[in-house]
């Protein structure tokens, strides 16, 4: 007990345990740095959260990921912008070597650089590709919502014991290869594929339906691949919802279907929005799915960019296509970051 009963160094041992107020020297020096009569608050003492007074370490911690993202994320966009831009590029030296690199690969780029963007607006191909991409992404998002909502709602309503395994089942396909999952649909949708065989066996159709290599196949592929991204945020919103709200509605005489429309549905809008953006934005720039499942006429901007880059080796036009695509997506991306930020805040509270 003695060890604890005398916590104050230099204090008197008092058997009763009470330490009488004994004279204390005004300043006990050397106890704490910056302590001895420091009149001005230390420069470190501004106070911004827990680690704020540990400036040097904090600086290092911040510099690494910040520097990485600046170098490998932000600067690349500036380079894309630069290369997509026209006349200035021809005149400024930094770009000339780029054309040399291309020359090494056996091709000289003689595209009129200032024409890149004019080409995008002048050629129907690009305009159609952009509109097509937005439309396909939009339709697929709607399909994801229609299929995903009941699934998310069913899991949120399921017995708590079942929720984790069911959720696991939704995430599971994500861990297997995306490419292989898209590929699986070739065998199902082709003219001699399983779906056509099945339908003909049932006698519903006489001759095979042409589904593979059409936009329909692209819708199916995108919906299939991105469905988990819709279900997860929807589930998160629905699961958090207070069940007593529906009980209160029922108590007040509201039938279940009406309660769903007037209470559940409006309250799940944040989840629908987050899920829709998670599907819509990447789907707009999708390359693999239209390439594998869509026909040659399923023009999507990701494919156009790819072929400008790999087939035509026209880097500046590819860059212009990328910048234009980014412009289309700026608003949805900002919206997504807003939703994302708000959800992180909600998690905090």
């Amino acid at each position, binding site marked *: 007990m003695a060890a604890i009963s005398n916590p104050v160094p230099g204090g008197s041992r008092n058997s009763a345990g009470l330490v009488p107020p004994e004279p204390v020297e005004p300043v006990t020096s050397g106890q704490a740095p910056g302590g001895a009569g420091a009149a001005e608050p230390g420069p470190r003492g501004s106070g911004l959260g827990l680690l704020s007074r540990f400036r040097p370490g904090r600086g290092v911690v911040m510099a690494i990921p910040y520097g990485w993202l600046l170098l490998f994320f932000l600067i*690349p966009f500036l380079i894309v912008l630069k290369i997509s831009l026209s006349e200035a590029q021809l005149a400024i030296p930094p770009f000339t070597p780029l054309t040399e690199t291309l020359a090494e690969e056996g091709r000289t780029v003689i595209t009129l650089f200032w024409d890149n963007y004019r080409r995008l607006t002048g050629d129907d191909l690009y305009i159609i590709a952009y509109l097509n991409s937005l439309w396909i992404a939009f339709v697929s998002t709607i399909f994801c919502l229609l299929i995903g909502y009941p699934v998310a709602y069913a899991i949120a*309503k399921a017995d708590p014991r079942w929720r984790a395994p069911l959720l696991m089942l939704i995430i599971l*396909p994500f861990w297997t290869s995306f490419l292989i999952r898209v590929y699986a649909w070739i*065998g199902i949708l082709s003219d001699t594929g399983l779906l056509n065989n099945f339908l003909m066996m049932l006698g519903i159709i006489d001759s095979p339906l042409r589904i593979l290599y059409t936009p329909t196949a692209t819708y199916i592929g995108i919906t299939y691949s991105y469905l988990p991204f819709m279900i997860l945020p929807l589930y998160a919103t629905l699961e958090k919802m207070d069940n007593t709200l529906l009980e209160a509605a029922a108590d007040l005489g509201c039938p279940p279907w009406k309660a769903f429309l007037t209470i559940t549905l409006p309250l799940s809008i944040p989840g629908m929005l987050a899920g829709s953006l998670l599907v819509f934005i990447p789907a707009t720039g999708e390359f693999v799915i239209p390439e594998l499942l869509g026909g040659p006429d399923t023009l999507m901007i990701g494919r156009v960019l*790819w072929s400008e880059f*790999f087939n035509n080796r026209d880097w500046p036009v590819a860059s212009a296509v*990328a910048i234009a695509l980014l412009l289309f997506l700026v608003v949805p991306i900002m919206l997504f970051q807003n939703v994302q930020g708000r959800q992180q805040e909600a998690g905090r509270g």
Partner: protein
Amino acid sequence: MPKSWFLRIGLVTGLLFLYLPILLLVILSFNANRSVAVWSGFSFHWYRELFNDQQLLSAAWLSVQVAFVSATFAVVLGTLAGLMLARFGAFRGRALFSGMVSAPLVMPEVILGLSLLLLFVSLEQLTGWPEGRGMLTIILSHITFTMAFVTVVVQSRLVSMDASLEEAAMDLGARPAKVFFVITLPIIAPAIVSGWLLAFTLSLDDLVITSFVSGPGSTTLPQVVFSSVRLGLSPKINALATIVVAIVAVGIIIAGIYNARQERMRQLDEKMAAQG
């Protein structure tokens, strides 16, 4: 299972939609016949062919190496980024930083791939590094886009963690760096592990970004798969798919057993606590 019939049907339909195609691949991988519509007997033929495909095997090995290194670096960077967003309050440039972190989550891959390639080309012209394109550039790109996912996972764990644990450690005399390694890191370890697995999977699976930044000597598994399936059906790929599914399934089963044990332990602990 939910009570309403409508919801049950919705759930089952959704799950069938997700799993039927995968199941078909697994079944077809044992089909002796090349066609999807004709079953002509059980066979390991496609597996033999798969394991004799040297190009595919070496691409798979490269992919695993890339994924391992990328995931490891992405976890370090992503954890630091998560720490900044969850703990550093309103530092200067926070809005830009959180924008840069979360944009790759949704950014179309063609844009990321193109921009990274143009960066590497410009960097090489300016500094001579990185020399050409290959494994290094693939890894750098994969770190960049997978760290976003790690950041989200780690950040949400940090936000839900009781911040007074860190304060308590500091109060007891631990300096910030020590607090992080002795208290924060062990507590968020599960999130870091799942972040690593996520980054590993994403890297292993990436085709589009890799295609932009890879060089002639470095072809990853998705690139090989893509070039064979864009020509149509290729039963070897069914066998590959089955192996991937099997690996994932084994992983899930192990995780399931581990979770069940944890749950039993937790219940025992609760009983212990209640008895005092």
